[in-house]
């Protein structure tokens, strides 16, 4: 598996990466209807509310599906790219740190945080 590129924050993602730095997975919750949404949501797709608060998620999820892109140069798997369903309902594209041969849809997962020397802290998921 290859190294993770360096991740830099922007204004819109500051709360997400601040959360990761203190080992919290931050998601959005609509200030009007209370529904939970993925971190990148801009306005509430359910009620149209445009105030989306940042709230910590439980950090548990189930695996929806995954893909294993290969590095052409080495003909080897690069990463396990997953689509996971957070306990609160939103789905999130993330990295799953597991042997892909052992994965199954619906597998329970838990968040893990990484704190690289350079760049932002970030979450990945591992089998629970």
């Amino acid at each position, binding site marked *: 598996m290859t190294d993770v590129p360096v991740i830099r924050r922007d204004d819109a993602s500051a709360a997400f990466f601040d959360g990761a730095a203190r080992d919290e997975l931050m998601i959005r919750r609509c200030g009007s209807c209370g529904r939970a949404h993925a971190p990148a949501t801009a306005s509430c797709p359910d009620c149209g509310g445009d105030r989306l608060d940042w709230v910590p998620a439980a950090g548990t999820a189930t695996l929806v599906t995954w893909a294993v892109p290969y590095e052409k140069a080495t003909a080897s798997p690069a990463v396990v790219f997953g689509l996971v369903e957070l306990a609160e309902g939103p789905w999130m594209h993330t990295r799953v740190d597991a042997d892909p041969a052992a994965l199954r849809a619906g597998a329970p997962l838990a968040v893990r945080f990484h704190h690289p020397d350079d760049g932002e802290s*970030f979450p990945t998921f591992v089998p629970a």
Partner: protein
Amino acid sequence: MPQPDGAAIAGLGMTELGKVYGTDARGLAARAVRLAADDAGLPLGDLDGLLVSGGMSGGVEIDLAAALGLTDLRMLSKVQSFGATAGAMVSYAAMAVLSGTATAVACVFADAPLREGRSAGSVYRRADRGGAVPEWHGLNGYTAAMGGRYGVNTLYALAARRHMETYGTTSEQFGAIAVAQRAWAARNPVAQMRDPITLADHQASRMIAEPLHLLDCCLVSNGGIAVIVTSAERARDLARPPVHVRGWAQGHPGTRLRRDSAFGLVTGAATSGPAAMKMAGITVDDVDVAELYDCYTYTVLVSLEDYGFCGKGEGGAFVADGALGPGGRLAVNTGGGQLSGYYMWGFTPLSEAVVQARGDGGDRQAPRNDVVLVSGNGGILDHHSTLVLSPEATP
């Protein structure tokens, strides 16, 4: 100005397709429109509508009208629904003809992403760009860093894997689609990949993004394709037999990625298919030839289910044993599609549909061609279009 017999495709123009160098997309688009008008026997100056679309290289814009010397157009626009664009364009052209907005509309796509000496994959691979330690910014940057940087192959791999996990679909079943389409391509003189392949070849082809092998993925091509849409009445007086545009529809499901999402399991074809077939006065049982958007083998399989050629989740069993190939149960992607023929987005299924509806397929002509279905798919299963074409004006 009522058009009781509806609209028809009167001309088809195709440039050389594949590793065609030396002409940019704009030049290829202009050539395709001229070829389509010649094919129809229509003077270029008789065009009063032009719809343009381009691919990865860009460069196809509404200034194509000026490049062609077209004057006094009554409709001119660029259309973008990704892989659903071709079907959308033909439907807009048909509606323009039916309403009297325009009388002869050219719809064109061209792209020239391939560069001499560079691999086809490099056109797409985001991971190859940038320096030794790439930096990614914001939430999109996080997704890219986690693996999204490997691009569209990886996103379709997520969809394919979900179908496999949910319904038990297998890589070998995807492979059966690749093998069938290559068998069609072997009979198509303009197909890029014409050497027959076996299921073993598919399984042995290098992994792109599990579960997708190289032979699950479409080609990359340079070239341009255009069609001319006019009234059926006028088309009958032109050079080629009319291909009637009997039905059309789009489906943009707006899939939200959250609990209970149908991502990877159902596409917009589930709504655009029935709507287009209803307009045409047919059912799926009437379809003789299906030209289905095939960015990946998986896309064909899920589309077959959504159109109702088989039940949901039964696509794997449906495609096994050569069902889609020459002499099979259903003629699908008879020119080799984008997997083995040429990659012109929705103009690949559209162009082959016109060939089949005219009966011009030669060695690859399907035994029956009364109803030809054209399916377009764009984004990551986000955008869908359907056309029902026929050599007959009415059912």
